[in-house]
């Protein structure tokens, strides 16, 4: 049987798994025929997620429909010593759902109900496979919404968002996933069902729910989530600011924040990206602009125009101009929907310019944005590769997209080097190597660059406490010694 293994250097003997007939039989007994995929041809599509460089086929894919079934599957894996990994929609950009040595993939897509919406106490209880935007749709008419809005929100699941602590354009004002999770039901790595946190926010004691958000599937399988809901703003303005240089655009971001304004979102798109997006969505971005910012403010109607004027002045002081000023109330206005659709699907549009590209997810302090962008401009020249940019500027969360030709080995090598250089520069500027996509299996080798051995040891101890034996999501997030993943090709996809 052909199994494509990821590029993995084996530093010591690894346990091997085999989906022998008895494992399949036991899983089938638990989940029924419908709930188990084990034939070779049907497992192929599960060998990768939104990150397609490293691939490994799971031996079995399980589709539980209840917490009890998840717990039973996890217990079975423990009993048989088989690794397992949870998977939501598979939009991870960090190979989060990869099972490098095979094992059981626990697919949560069939647990996708909204269990409860409490408008007065402003929370909802949902199953992990619920698609992010479906929750907001289910809230239509209540005056509430679920704030974390990753660009992938039309596809990714809330369980996946909890596991990766997903952010999005509106993170700037409303916070990331962790700020909106009140409690979770978790099937621990050993198969116990526990509730962590609860219906009310900020409980006394350690913030265990906080610890779970961002665990990237290493602390078990999340089976229910209590999320806090936010009130819809009364109104808003979405401004499209156009600049002649990238430097001006990102400098304006810092100026806005320094002026005491807290925009709901500030997104930057550079010229290369503008052209791709325009081709795909025809929003009407000016094709000659070196960079644009989408700046959104929201709140009480009465204050908005004044704030918009203040922003306009800042933009003008950086030789920019305001090209659009979209006033909205419901977020359903066609122009509003169109500009955000362009932004949120921007990454996908790059496929129209170059079929192969890789992207990185780095963070720098907001004031260091001009430096890192200048650095990227130089790197682009140095390596002779085009680099496109579209990112959450307000958070200093950059997503350079490096275009290359996968058939040209030298370009591939240069793209990889450019990625590493840029991430190293992020760290040097006081930032980090993952803003929101997570470490997954992709970036595990970068962790030692970011953390001291002591820090890593502390994290490893936590990992060992909550994931003894390491069967749950092996080789992810925290380097546990033993294996080192070496990347030989750049990560191809990874949007903002």
């Amino acid at each position: 049987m052909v199994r494509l293994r990821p590029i993995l250097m084996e530093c010591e003997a690894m346990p091997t798994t085999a989906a022998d007939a008895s494992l399949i039989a036991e899983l089938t007994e638990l989940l029924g025929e419908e709930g188990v995929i084990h034939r070779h041809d049907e497992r192929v599509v599960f060998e990768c997620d939104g990150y397609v460089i490293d691939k490994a086929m799971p031996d079995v894919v399980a589709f539980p429909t209840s917490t009890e079934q998840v717990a039973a599957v996890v217990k079975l894996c423990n009993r048989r010593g088989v690794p397992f990994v949870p998977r939501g929609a598979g939009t991870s950009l960090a190979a989060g759902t990869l099972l490098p040595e095979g094992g059981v993939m626990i697919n949560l897509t069939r647990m996708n109900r909204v269990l409860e919406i409490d408008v007065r106490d402003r929370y909802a209880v949902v199953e992990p496979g619920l698609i992010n935007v479906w929750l907001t749709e289910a809230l239509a008419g209540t005056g509430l919404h679920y704030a974390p809005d990753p660009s992938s929100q039309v596809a990714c699941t809330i369980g996946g968002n909890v596991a990766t602590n997903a952010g999005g354009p509106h993170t700037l004002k409303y916070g990331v996933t962790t700020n909106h999770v009140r409690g979770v039901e978790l099937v621990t790595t050993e198969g116990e069902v526990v509730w962590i946190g609860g219906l009310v926010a900020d409980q006394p004691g350690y913030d265990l729910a906080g610890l779970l958000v961002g665990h990237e599937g290493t602390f078990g399988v999340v089976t229910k989530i209590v999320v806090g809901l936010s009130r819809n703003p009364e109104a808003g303005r979405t401004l499209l600011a156009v600049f002649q240089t990238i430097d001006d655009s990102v400098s304006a971001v810092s100026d806005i924040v320094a002026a005491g304004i807290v925009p709901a979102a500030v997104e930057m798109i550079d010229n290369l990206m503008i052209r791709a997006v325009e081709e795909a969505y025809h929003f009407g971005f000016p094709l000659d602009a070196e960079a644009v910012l989408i700046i959104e403010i929201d709140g009480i109607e009465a204050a908005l125009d004044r704030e918009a004027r203040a922003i306009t002045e800042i933009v003008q002081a950086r030789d920019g101009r305001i090209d659009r000023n979209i006033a909205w109330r419901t977020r359903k206005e066609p122009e509003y929907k169109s500009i955000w659709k362009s932004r949120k699907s921007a990454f996908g549009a790059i496929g129209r310019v170059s079929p192969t590209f890789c992207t990185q997810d780095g963070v720098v302090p907001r004031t260091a944005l001009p430096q890192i962008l200048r650095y990227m401009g130089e790197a682009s020249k140095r390596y002779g590769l085009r680099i496109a940019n579209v990112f959450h500027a307000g958070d200093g969360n950059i997503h350079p997209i490096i275009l290359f030709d996968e058939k040209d080995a030298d370009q591939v090598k240069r793209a990889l080097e450019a990625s590493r250089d840029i991430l190293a520069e992020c760290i040097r500027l006081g930032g980090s190597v993952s803003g929101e996509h997570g470490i997954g299996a992709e970036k595990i080798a970068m962790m030692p660059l970011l953390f001291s051995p002591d820090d890593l040891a502390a994290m490893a101890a936590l990992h060992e406490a909550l994931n003894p034996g390491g069967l749950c999501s092996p080789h992810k997030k925290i380097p546990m010694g033993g294996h080192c993943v070496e990347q030989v090709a750049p990560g191809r996809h990874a949007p903002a």
Partner: protein
Amino acid sequence: MATVETDARTVETTGETTPVDLAWLAEQIPYRFYQECIHCGFCLPTCPTYVLTGDENDSPRGRIYLMKSVADGRLAVGPEIRKHLEFCLDCRACETACPSGVKYARLVEPFKIELIRKTPPGKGFGTLQKVVLHHLLPYSNRVRASLLPVRLLQKIGLMNPLRKSGLFKLLPSTLRNMEATVPTLQPASNLPEVLPAIGPRRARVGILLGCVTDVMTPQTNSATARVLRRNGCEVVVPRAQTCCGAIHYHSGAEAPALAMARQNMEAFDFENLDAIVVNAAGCGAMFKSYDHVLPPEERERAARFVAKVKDVSEFLMELGPIPPDNPLPLKVTYHDACHLRHGQQVYDQPRRLLEMIPGLELVPLAESELCCGAAGTYNLTEPEAAHRLGRRKAGNVEATGAAVVASGNIGCTLQIGRHIREAGLNVEVVHPVDLLDRAYEGGS
């Protein structure tokens, strides 16, 4: 277990494989079409089959991955792959959702054609499909007679046993010879060949009657002609027009489909028409694809033909519709036919037209873009999934409280109508032009 040799390596598959012609597929599908999928997953939740099963194999991204693996020689087409490809509705919701511009239909259609071609006669859906699709549907005067029993059998769940019993084999033998000839339609709507414009002439247009429409809902064809005339169009109903060929094409009978395309391009004197107006989304989408299904040397002419093809709502909105005078005080909801919404990117126009009718209240339909399960021949080939989608659609319609649901495709009209009846609802299913026609002609 069968082991299949491919150029690259030996792959193992579980069961009997279908020997697809990789060279032919490579001719039909430029490799970059596969590469355009950047594996982002944005299409997943818009895909009706993925929504039903939650299995990546039943998603657009998964199917593209499977097809690419086949094209790469990494996978042979075993029964599983076949199942997942056949389960696809061809509704093209994924194309609308895709930020990368993946032309999904251009990938899956050649695969489906190849699968059907390689099905030994009498196997799987082959027989039934060939009977119903190739022999009956295109000859509209036989549709009424032939469709009803099939639908009935389906409803009472007898189709499978019957197929297995071999009784169905009796049918093709009587009808087999008809495949070679391309028939000429006798319009049941009895429209004359040319109808003058009412008021000053603004355009000269041809209309396609469509085989199923003309038998099942001939009044929609009459309504289309009247509405066009009221908007200043001289309407030409070419006698030599025939089936658009979609059903043949999608079920693997490429040659008759292309013959039909050619005949239609002859029948409509398109250089002398301002537009070719189509009121069935499935036929419209097929007409609009003539320029890539025909061989390269015929494509230039086909492209000129395609440039004239318009859905009736698309055409009216471009022309600038004359508002009707008579009120229709009705609560109406609108279902997006896949081949209109996704296949032709027409979604706003029918809504604008409906809103133009005085007194009519247009209410939004939840999941209006989710396939109703009709999807061409899907309710014949995947009855179980088609049922679930149909019930879901009827439920959403019920929730709107509308008295009428409008949709721009005959397949949807039949499918939704049936599920509405089964649910015991009192909701009328119509084409938007039916409502416009009533509003022009005096309301009701």
